[in-house]
């Protein structure tokens, strides 16, 4: 019986740990972000595009921000090419920043490059 109880305890602990880990996600959904739209303008320093998710490093007035953009299908849908997001390009990002104010991370809903707007999440305002 003692063994059974310790197994049960282990399973409960495992579920708790996994449950706590999930909302901390920086890549899935929007729950980790702050409410209200956030705008950022800067120069792309580095672009890592493609699966599992696209990441830009953007220099905004000397501050380096991490910008989460879309997966390939999301970029394809709005005609956003990888070459458009090359180093040295100016980009305007509208999205939601991390709810943690110390974290310079923003998940993009819309980006503007070279005067063209790419709406990655047409169903979000």
């Amino acid at each position: 019986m003692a063994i059974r109880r310790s197994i049960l305890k282990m399973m409960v602990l495992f579920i708790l740990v996994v449950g706590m880990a999930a909302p901390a996600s920086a890549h899935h959904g929007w729950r980790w972000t702050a409410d209200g739209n956030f705008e950022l303008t800067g120069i792309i320093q580095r672009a890592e595009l493609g699966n599992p998710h696209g990441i830009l490093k953007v220099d905004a007035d000397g501050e380096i921000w991490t910008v989460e953009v879309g997966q390939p299908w999301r970029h394809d849908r709005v005609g956003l090419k990888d070459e458009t997001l090359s180093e040295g390009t100016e980009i305007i990002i509208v999205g939601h920043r991390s709810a943690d104010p110390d974290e310079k991370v923003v998940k993009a809903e819309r980006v503007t490059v070279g005067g063209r707007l790419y709406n990655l999440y047409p169903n979000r305002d």
Partner: protein
Amino acid sequence: MWEALEATALAQHLRASTYSYPLVNALHIVGLALLLGGITPVDLRLLGLWRGIPLEPLIRTARRTAAFGLVLALAMGLLLFSVRASEYAMHPAFQIKLVLILAALANAAFGEHAHRRHEAGRLRVHAGLSLGLWLAVILAGRAIAYF
């Protein structure tokens, strides 16, 4: 070396793909499900649950299920790894996961050995370690995406 893996046609295709990457991702999870789905009932049985269920047929079916799951998870895992090999290779959670997988496989081999020699006490220890190690592998695997 990692760059060479990232530069393969398959890795490039997966990185840019709409459907292949999520499919490979899902099959990796199918592999894990079969692996732990095979292992967990045996470990719990060895730890004292379901004493009325005969051990040998349970082990025989579970071993094949788990072995298939392991091969599937490893193959799909290698594909997922190839997409961002140099990044994952440096990721602490990924490194921990690899060590845990090696420990879990070694533990399984020692468990098989104890089983063949009918050492019930030692076998129970390996069963407990097996549960803990494989759950830790899953946690470390998820941590790659979150940290």
